[in-house]
C-alpha cells in the first residue's frame, strides 16, 4: 500500500507492506537510523518519535497508521546550522547519555514531557519518562537534563515543525 508522510520536514511517499512498523519504515526505508528498537512489547521507549505533536512508540504504530502525519525523529531536531535543540544541549551538558541507545527515544519523550508540562518537578519528569528505559545512567542525569532544558524556555518542549506552525 502507499503511505505518505512528512518526516523531519521532508515529504515521503512509499509503497509498503501494511504490516510495516513505523520504526522499520523510518530505519529501513528512509534510512533514519537514530530511532532504535529495544524491545517487542512497547516497554522500552527507545523507538519514541513525535507524530503530529505527540510522543509515540514507533514500534507499535504501523507506517499505515502514520499515513498523512508529521513525524519528527532525533535527526530532525538540530537546526540547519547544526545548532542543537535545547533538549539535545541539556542532555550533553548534564551527561544524560552513555551508550546512546535509549537516547534518541529518551530525547523525544523528554520533549513530549515538556510539551505537556513546561516546568516539571523531578517526580513529574520521572513519571513522564516512565515508558523509557535506560540501563546506563540510572536516570539521574536524564532527570537533571530535562529539568535544565525546561529552563531554556518553551522551545525545549517543541519540535522544529511546531515552531514553524507557531510562527
Amino acid at each position, binding site marked *: 500500500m502507499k503511505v505518505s508522510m512528512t518526516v523531519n520536514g521532508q515529504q515521503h511517499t512509499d509503497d509498503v507492506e501494511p504490516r510495516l512498523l513505523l520504526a522499520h519504515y523510518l530505519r529501513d526505508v528512509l534510512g533514519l537510523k537514530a530511532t532504535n528498537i529495544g524491545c517487542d512489547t512497547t516497554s522500552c521507549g527507545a523507538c519514541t518519535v513525535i507524530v503530529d505533536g*505527540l510522543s509515540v*512508540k514507533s514500534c*507499535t504504530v*504501523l507506517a499505515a497508521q502514520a499515513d498523512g502525519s508529521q513525524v519528527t525523529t532525533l535527526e530532525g531536531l538540530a537546526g540547519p546550522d547544526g545548532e542543537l535543540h535545547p533538549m539535545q544541549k541539556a542532555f550533553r551538558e548534564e551527561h544524560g547519555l552513555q551508550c546512546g541507545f535509549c537516547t534518541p527515544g529518551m530525547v523525544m*519523550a523528554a520533549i*513530549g514531557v515538556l510539551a505537556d508540562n513546561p516546568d516539571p518537578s523531578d517526580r513529574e519528569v520521572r*513519571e513522564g519518562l*516512565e*515508558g523509557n528505559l535506560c540501563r546506563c545512567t540510572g536516570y539521574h542525569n536524564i532527570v537533571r537534563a530535562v529539568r535544565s532544558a525546561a529552563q531554556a524556555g518553551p522551545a525545549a518542549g517543541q519540535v522544529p515543525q511546531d515552531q514553524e506552525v507557531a510562527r
Partner: protein
Amino acid sequence: MIPGAFEYVRPGTVEEAVAALVEHGDDAKLIAGGHSLLPLMKLRLAMPAVLVDISRIPDLSYVRVEGDEVAIGAGTRHFELEKDDVARAEVPILPYAASQVGDPQVRHRGTLGGTVAHSDPASDLPTALLALGGSVVVQGPGGRRSIPMTEFWLGFYETALAEDEVVVEVRVPRTGSAGWAYEKFTRRANDWPIVAVAAVEGRVALANMAGAVVRATATEEALARGASIAEAAGLADEGTSPSSDMHADPEYRRHLARLLTRRALEKASGAGAAAA
C-alpha cells in the same frame, strides 16, 4: 518482532467498518490506537487476516454531558480523557484512571473504545467504568444498541460485543463531586495493576481478580446495609477467582483486594475526595 501479514482497510464511517466486519467475519480485527492489538500481533498471539483501522472515522472523539450522563466517544484517546475539563468536573474518576494507563506514549495512542473492547481484566479504565455503571453503545449491521456496563465484560478478552459490532460510545452517570478513588497496586509505575480497585458512590470494581473486571458485590451489599468500611472491605475478594502469576498468588491478590478496597473506600468517603 513483527506482525504476520494482513490486509489493511481504512473505513471512513462506522457503517463501512461494520460492513468490513460483516464481510470478513472472525478473520478481521478492528484497530484504533493499536496498543492492545499490535503487541499481541508482534508476539504472533493474534494473526488477523484483515485489519480494519477505525482511527480515521470522524466524530468518535468527544466528551459531553447529555442529561444525567456523560457520553464519551470510543475514539477518545486516553490523554484526551485525562485532560478533558468536562470529564474532570463530571466523572473525575475517569480522567484519573486514564492517567494511570501505561505511559505517556501509550496514552497518546490508546483509545477508550479499544480498552473497553479488549477486555483485559487488568485494565484501568474498564475497572473505573464498571464502578461507575452506565452502558457501552455499540453499532452493528442492525444499528445501535446499548449494553449495560455490568453485562459487557464476560471474561479474558471476551465481551458481549458481537463479531460484527463496533464500540462507538461509553455513557456513564455524572458523579460530580461525589467521593471516589482509584487504588492501583503495581511494582513499577507503568505496569499493569497486580490488583486495582475503583470506588465511587458505594460501588466498587476490581481489576485482575477474575477473568474480567468484576464488581465487589459483597462489599457493596455490606455498605448498603450500613457496615463499616473495614467490615465491607474485608469482603472485597468474595466471589472472585484471582489467578497466580510471578507477582502474586491468589492468597496475596485476595489480601490486596481487601486492603486496596479499604483504602479506596476511606479515600472516597474522605472530605472532598481529592485525587487518590
